[in-house]
């Protein structure tokens, strides 16, 4: 409890980081391997979980199910989220900077609300940690690009979440890419709506519940209200995913799965659309993304692919994966297994940050299109809107106070 109550200053953080710099980076443990095949601690990946709410706890559970991973520390600005983990031996922190300053942590799991993803993961990568970050990857397009740049510059392994890109939608992608149905013409995916601004009144923070300033982090300062930081799912106004300052809404939350699956199948998850058509314009009933190769991604209907010979359907005997379609390697069956393999083997995971960023970008562009209510043109190489200064202002958001990436 001592660490929980301690308020870290930036000076303290910097001091801890400097101390870490002076120590060797390999875990030095006296623990020996167990008879059940658990590797010795010196070979285990020491994990720090940041954001231990529902999803973060789930991800941490998935990651630590692998014997190669050992949970070393957890962090959450909501005090109650730490208790269960502390009982299991993990050291608890309320300020992630203390956790990533620890030299004995190899990898972090980031399960915080969206507005923290970029800051935490970039800081962690600069401190030499690999990253598993829940989807959606980012709050803004520019943030996502900076996450890619940091991963590349610092040589870190970075996997985003979404077990469904392959899990639910992978067989559909295999069918579409099998050649049996001809060339893909259109893909369909309907993630859900954009977020909205929050105008909830301020309330008194109940004691010992939350470090509100840290919860807000890079987001604009506003008075506390439990629904701003609530965990309720959806856009009903009782959870953070409803609000523009902290989330891209269901568009980015489900977009990570649904657009991720569609773009994977279309083979465009390394790039972005060139045009975005607002619903109702140019004979498009739904929001529609047009890619340079002519393929379209339509935001509507059930997940699927319209091909030259009709809708693609999985068929018996279909190779999974089909040749040429990216997939988990080395027998991984989930993003959690995949990232652990990749951390060990030092290769890029299936949900590498670049792919996750491209998918998140499509989500963000959709939200911007909904907000501006007009067609947009996008340059996927420069990652900016063409001839639209107003839209380009929404590509990023200035961060509060000390939070810079």
């Amino acid at each position, binding site marked *: 409890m001592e660490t929980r109550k301690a308020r870290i200053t930036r000076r303290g953080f910097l*001091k801890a980081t400097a101390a870490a*710099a002076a120590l060797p*980076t390999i875990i030095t443990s006296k623990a020996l391997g167990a008879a059940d095949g658990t590797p010795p601690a010196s070979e285990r990946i020491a994990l720090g979980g940041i954001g231990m709410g529902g999803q973060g706890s789930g991800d941490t559970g998935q990651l630590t199910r692998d014997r190669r991973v050992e949970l070393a520390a957890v962090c959450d600005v909501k005090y109650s989220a730490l208790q269960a983990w502390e009982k299991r031996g993990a050291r608890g922190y309320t300020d992630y900077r203390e956790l990533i300053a620890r030299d004995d942590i190899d990898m972090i799991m980031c399960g915080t609300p969206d507005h923290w993803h970029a800051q935490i993961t970039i800081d962690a990568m600069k401190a*030499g940690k690999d990253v598993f970050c829940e989807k959606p990857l980012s709050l803004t397009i520019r943030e996502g690009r900076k996450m890619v740049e940091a991963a590349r510059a*610092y*040589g870190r392994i970075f996997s985003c979440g979404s077990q469904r890109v392959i899990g639910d939608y992978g067989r559909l992608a295999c069918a579409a890419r099998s050649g*049996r149905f001809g060339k893909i013409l259109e893909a369909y995916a309907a993630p859900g709506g954009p977020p909205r601004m929050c105008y909830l009144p301020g309330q008194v923070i109940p004691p010992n519940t939350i470090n509100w300033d840290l919860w807000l982090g890079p987001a604009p300062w506003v008075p506390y209200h439990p629904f701003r930081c609530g965990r309720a799912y959806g856009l009903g106004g009782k959870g953070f995913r409803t609000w523009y300052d902290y989330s891209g809404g269901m568009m980015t939350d489900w977009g990570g799965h649904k657009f991720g699956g569609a773009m994977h199948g279309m083979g465009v998850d390394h790039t972005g659309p060139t045009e975005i058509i607002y619903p109702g314009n140019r004979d498009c009933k739904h929001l529609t993304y047009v890619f340079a190769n002519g393929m379209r991604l339509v935001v509507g209907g059930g997940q699927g692919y319209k091909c030259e010979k009709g809708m693609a359907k999985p068929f018996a005997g279909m190779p999974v994966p089909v040749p040429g379609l990216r997939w988990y390697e080395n027998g991984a069956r989930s993003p959690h297994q995949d990232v652990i393999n990749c951390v060990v083997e*030092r290769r890029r995971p299936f949900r590498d940050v670049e792919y996750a960023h491209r998918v998140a970008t499509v989500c963000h562009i959709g939200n911007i299109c909904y907000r501006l209510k007009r067609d947009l043109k996008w340059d996927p190489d420069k990652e900016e809107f063409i001839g639209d200064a107003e839209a380009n202002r929404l590509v990023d958001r*200035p961060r509060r106070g000390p939070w810079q990436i």
Partner: protein
Amino acid sequence: MINKIAIAFMICGLATRGLFGADLTNYEYGDESKAGEAIEKLLQETPVNEYGRIEKGLIGVVTSKKATQAGKAIACRALQQVGTEKCIPAVSGLLGDEVLSHYARLVLERLKSGKANQAMREALEKAPAKVKVGLLGSLGECRDAKAVPLAGQLAQSDDADVAAAAIQALGKIGGSQAAQRLAALKPGRVLVPVQMQAMVACAASLPGNEAAALCETVLAGTYSPSRMAALRALASADAAKAVPMIAKALKGDDLQLRMGALGIVADTKGEALTRAMLGLLAALSPERKAGLVLALGSRGDKAALNSVTKLIRSGETVVRNAAIKAVSKLGDAGTVRILLGMADSPALTASVAEAIARMTADKVDQALAAALEEAGLRKAAIKASIARGCTAAVPGLLKLVKAADAATRKDAWAALAALAGEDHMDAIMKAVVKTRQAQELAYAEETVKKVTSRAANKGKCFKVIANYFDKVPDATKGVILTLGAVSGDADALAMERKGLASGNKTLYGQALRALAAWPNASAAADLLKLAKGAPEKVDRLVALRGYIRIAGLKTARLTSAQRTQMLKTAMGLAQRTDEKKQVISGLQNAPTLESLNMLKRYMGDPALRAEAEMAAANLLWDLRKSHPAEVTAMAQELRKSKNKTVANKASKTISDLNK
């Protein structure tokens, strides 16, 4: 006076449009005026060329002395979208405020304007420390070269937070001046990592030699994460200088740096680096060698292909596996033959198949198909074809099912079972006709079954098979009859009747069982006839069970009345309790009053009571609206059942009827 005019203008202007009726000046979060929502709506509905009027009104709020913090914050959010350089003086006035400074930066940072940058620089000098940190962040984000001198001074501040923010800003602004400032800094120990990170960031903005010098400074330090980043930056800035340092890192003990070096090998271009890395391979331990081989594979430089391919024969498993993976990325169609030639053990055959399955180069499928013709490569080529899902191999495999070697024929049938499609069925059947040996016939039959079961158009596929019915031996005829149930069309039914009339007891039995597994109701009449009149008792039983099955089949497209009638007939024929229970179970899928009455009768039979009660309880819900009185009576009886599930279902139905 000016403020009042501006606010009045806004309220007046917006109110006349019927979109805004609240005073943003007095706004507080949670306010019933919903001014925030109104502004958002207004921005969405106003054409861009009319933004000027909104901007003017918002400036009024920002500059108002009476305006609340929340009102000003919301005004800034709106100005982020509609603001121009005209709003800079007003918004700059908020830069000194601890809360509103950030809201002001929402506007100024995204304006991308020299004037906005100037305003932030001017505010920086007077701002409190906490605000300075944010301003430095924005100036860094805007890459404002004019901020370098000021940031340079603040980088030496006694306040560690301010100094760190200034150092970060210098890194982001980049350029020679910022680089000089960064290199000249002598920060305290706590700020060294920040300085290193900033130098790496700054290097990306510099010409080659300057960048290289900055990177070398970082590499001379001890902070591993930044050293690794500097090595990567050096590789981009000056590849020739980087090559020996990458080699040193790969041989060295700094794990972070070693992993980083592998990443650089994988990501950066240049033949010189490829050559240097190939030269280094021999000097590395197996684990390190494997890592480098994988990196060379990801690198994609074909110059590494020959050397890496040779490592597939390595005695070290870790190296061999890495080489196979690397070759799958580097190799082309010509590599297929080389890989297949190496598959001289089961383990190596599996590895080669995996590598070929992953290859993305053009014409790999054709190369694989061609390899089937070479005896020495054939076995591995068949395995690789299956792993790759290579349908181009099917014509070659069809030839191989006639090969002299029995093992090859077996492998070929297995591959056809995995790869062939309905378009190949005719050719497969031609091969089946010529197959005589019993064991081989079993492989052939398995192939026919698998291809048919995954055919998109099973009827079309079965038609092709049926054409061969009279040409194949009786054993194969039996397989064809079994496959009739997969198709279920009229031709298939006709063929089953042929089987029943064949006089061959085995074929009769197979036709009967196919009918009992029929996918639709078209076989019902035949089954009923057999249930009544088949010579053997066991055949009558099989037919009756098939008939009951079809009556309950959801995909049979039967009305509830038809189902009830069929089940009533079946019950008349059923002699054993098992079949009677099957009928009762089918009745729950036939929601008619007659079904309910039948079930009521069976509830009196102790041997059938439990099944009848459950079926009746399931029927209640479906019939409650069409026959409420009968359902109520039955539900009240069932509510007394000892089976809790039945009693609960009955109670739920009664509750619903009483609503």
